[in-house]
């Protein structure tokens, strides 16, 4: 369409150019005529002067010319003869006239070879001739109405400062016609080009109209009259989605309507809902039939509050509408997902997917709802959408911070725990904001692989001991496990510096496989820790089943030991248990000196937490 616009502009510019050329050609003809007239009249002045000279020589006086010439026919013949010598096809009429007492112009002499006037014959001329008697100067009269004459040159014969007569020289229009015919090819050429370009312009305009009509049909859903997916594709290519809120609508239980009442009624519901959408949205908003009963709305940005109000208005309109089939009435509802921040998505498709996710949440949470952010359906306020997480990982937003683990007795750092983060510009997202959403997905595997790579690179760079959090799922994942095993087998020096902290957030399925793989890792020097022991699926038998070297006590218990006797007892018991089976214990979430003091008294060797250091770059 953009190209078409340029072509049209180009053609229009050409049309204007040719039109100017066409009119300029006509103007040139006029200008040439004027110039020619000027040249001719300049020369004719001398002709008039010569005639005056002739009269002066031949006549005794220029005073009272009618009387002198009337009384001397022989002289008149002689002078007529002399004037006729000046007559040519270009100026066929050369004559001398005077004005009588009634104001009539009458011939004195006439040298014209044809249509010759008699002495004293009246000649009806333009009243403009009278101007010569006032100005006493030559006058050129251009004939626009007389077909055979082009111009008349009037030269006054003066005596005693009075006009006694006028020498009139009529120029034939033949000369002008020659000029016009010489210019005709140019005029015809420009007229021809003008006509061709005009015709082309009309053809192009006609084609554009057809194109627009066809295009409109091709981008319109025939059932609902809304835009279709073809339009959506162009829309996403051409427009900036950031200017809109993305609404995803879905008719609840539409399949049941179709199954119960048939497809015809289903179509009627779709058309009605489409009309309700159109009625409740502005002209500048875009509505697309996205799928069967799914509609996509691009609502011009105003305020999020307004967008939510629009969605609610539409939802209520559908809810309150009574669908009628014959005598029967039924109702339906609409679920809506709104992506209020499409600008946060690198790709438009991802912004749409997020709106779809929100719609799905609205469906899951009971339907007939408007969901505009994930917190409205889940408990997490900061959860990142899957698409966003993928984008951030692909854009290199994944990184690790490292929290030191201290030996309480020596007050020295013994190792670091790698903590994964996602970064978008200046915003940092924490694991609880993105891990739950991607668990058990390929994206999670990708995340783990990247974290392992970062940690192993860091060990290589710093030669420090670093622990990494992995889930049982990671250990059973062939891709992750074999990649890790392969890397560590090739670089055994890294293995001894690496500790795997197993997250106890899930049940221990596939015990044998996990045990086998942990043993294999342990054989090449990797240490294994059980994380958050004391919560989740904690079970003391895990120490029988898996080769655990380190026990990390759940931070929630540790935080309470200074003021909660039960927490204190549990931590004491876990520590005692660790000492008994020869497993090192690490207390997490050590946030103040009081906790540290309690831990010392219990006899825990290692600790980490904000009291020592926040996670930082290493």
């Amino acid at each position, binding site marked *: 369409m953009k190209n078409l616009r340029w072509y049209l502009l180009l053609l229009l510019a050409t049309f204007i150019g040719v039109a100017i050329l066409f009119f300029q050609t006509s103007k040139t003809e006029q200008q040439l005529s004027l110039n020619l007239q000027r040249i001719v009249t300049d020369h004719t002045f001398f002709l008039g002067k010569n005639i005056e000279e002739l009269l002066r020589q031949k006549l005794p006086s220029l005073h009272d010319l009618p009387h002198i010439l009337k009384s001397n026919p022989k002289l008149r013949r002689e002078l007529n003869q002399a004037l006729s010598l000046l007559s040519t096809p270009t100026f066929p009429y050369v004559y001398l006239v005077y004005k009588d007492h009634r104001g009539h112009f009458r011939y004195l002499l006439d040298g014209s070879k044809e*249509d010759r006037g008699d002495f004293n*014959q009246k000649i009806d001329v333009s009243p403009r001739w009278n101007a010569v008697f006032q100005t006493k100067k030559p006058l050129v009269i251009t*004939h626009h*109405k007389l077909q055979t004459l082009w111009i008349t040159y009037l030269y006054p014969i003066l005596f005693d400062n009075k006009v006694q007569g006028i020498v009139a020289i009529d120029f034939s229009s033949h000369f002008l016609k020659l000029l016009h015919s010489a210019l005709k090819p140019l005029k015809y050429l420009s007229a021809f080009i003008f006509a061709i370009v005009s015709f082309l312009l009309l053809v192009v305009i006609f084609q554009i109209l057809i194109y627009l009509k066809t295009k409109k049909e091709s981008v319109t859903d025939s059932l609902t009259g809304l835009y279709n997916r073809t339009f959506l594709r162009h829309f996403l290519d051409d427009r900036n989605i950031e200017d809109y809120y993305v609404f995803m609508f879905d008719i609840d239980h539409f399949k049941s309507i179709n199954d119960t009442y048939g497809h015809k009624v289903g179509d009627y519901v779709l058309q009605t809902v489409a009309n309700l959408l159109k009625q409740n949205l502005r002209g500048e908003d875009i509505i697309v039939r996205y799928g069967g009963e799914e509609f996509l709305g691009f609502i011009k940005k105003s305020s999020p509050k307004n967008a939510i109000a629009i969605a609610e208005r539409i939802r209520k309109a559908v809810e309150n509408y009574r669908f009628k089939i014959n005598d029967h009435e039924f109702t339906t509802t609409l679920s809506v997902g709104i992506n209020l921040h499409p600008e946060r998505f690198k790709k438009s498709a991802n912004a749409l997917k997020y709106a779809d996710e929100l719609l799905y949440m609205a469906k899951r949470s009971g339907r007939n709802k408007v969901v505009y952010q994930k917190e409205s359906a889940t408990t997490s306020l900061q959860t990142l959408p899957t698409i966003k997480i993928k984008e951030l990982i692909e854009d290199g937003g994944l990184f690790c911070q490292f929290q030191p683990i201290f030996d309480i007795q020596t007050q020295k750092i013994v190792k670091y725990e790698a903590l994964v983060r996602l970064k978008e510009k200046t915003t940092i997202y924490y694991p609880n904001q993105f891990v739950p959403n991607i668990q058990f997905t390929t994206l999670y595997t990708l995340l783990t692989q990247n974290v392992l790579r970062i940690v192993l690179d860091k060990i290589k760079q710093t030669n420090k001991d670093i622990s990494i959090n992995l889930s049982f799922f990671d250990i059973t994942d062939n891709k992750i496990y074999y990649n890790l095993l392969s890397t560590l087998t090739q670089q055994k020096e890294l293995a001894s510096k690496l500790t795997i902290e197993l997250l106890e957030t899930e049940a221990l399925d596939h015990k044998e496989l996990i045990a086998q793989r942990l043993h294999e890792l342990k054989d090449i020097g990797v240490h294994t820790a059980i994380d958050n022991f004391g919560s989740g699926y904690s079970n003391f038998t895990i120490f029988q089943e898996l080769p655990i070297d380190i026990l990390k006590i759940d931070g929630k218990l540790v935080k309470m030991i200074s003021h909660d006797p039960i927490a204190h007892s549990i931590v004491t018991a876990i520590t005692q248990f660790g000492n008994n089976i020869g497993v090192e214990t690490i207390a997490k979430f050590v946030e103040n000196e009081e906790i540290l003091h309690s831990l010392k008294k219990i006899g825990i060797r290692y600790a980490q937490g904000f009291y020592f250091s926040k996670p930082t770059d290493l």
Partner: protein
Amino acid sequence: MIRIISLLFLTALFVYSEGMIQIQKEIYTQILSALLPKRRSIKIWAQNPRTLLALQNIPFVHIVSKPQKADVLIIYKDNRILSPQICNKIVLSESYRLIKQKKECILGGFFWHKGRPNIIFLEQNLYKHHIRLPKEMEQFIEDEL
């Protein structure tokens, strides 16, 4: 007067076109109305076919085929029809030469001279026919040729 002159010059515009007939018609309408102002119907015989074309569209004009039946005759070049009986009628000519040649018979006329339209009425003949022209036509009256 200005109207008449303007009309004469307008005529020139359509000399070689169909429009000329229309202008010629209007000039003859003016001339005939001036010559016979009280007549509701004027019978005319004309020699020139082009003049006939112009005249046939004038509402009060009836074209006649015989000169004897006409009130007004418009002759072009051929003066053979100018018998004494004919000369008692109003005779107009489209040739200055003919007007001058048969000035005792021809009242005047409308003709082209050097590409310009010209009108002449002979004073003595106007008297003969007891015709008094309106003021705007007086400028075309000639006492002698």
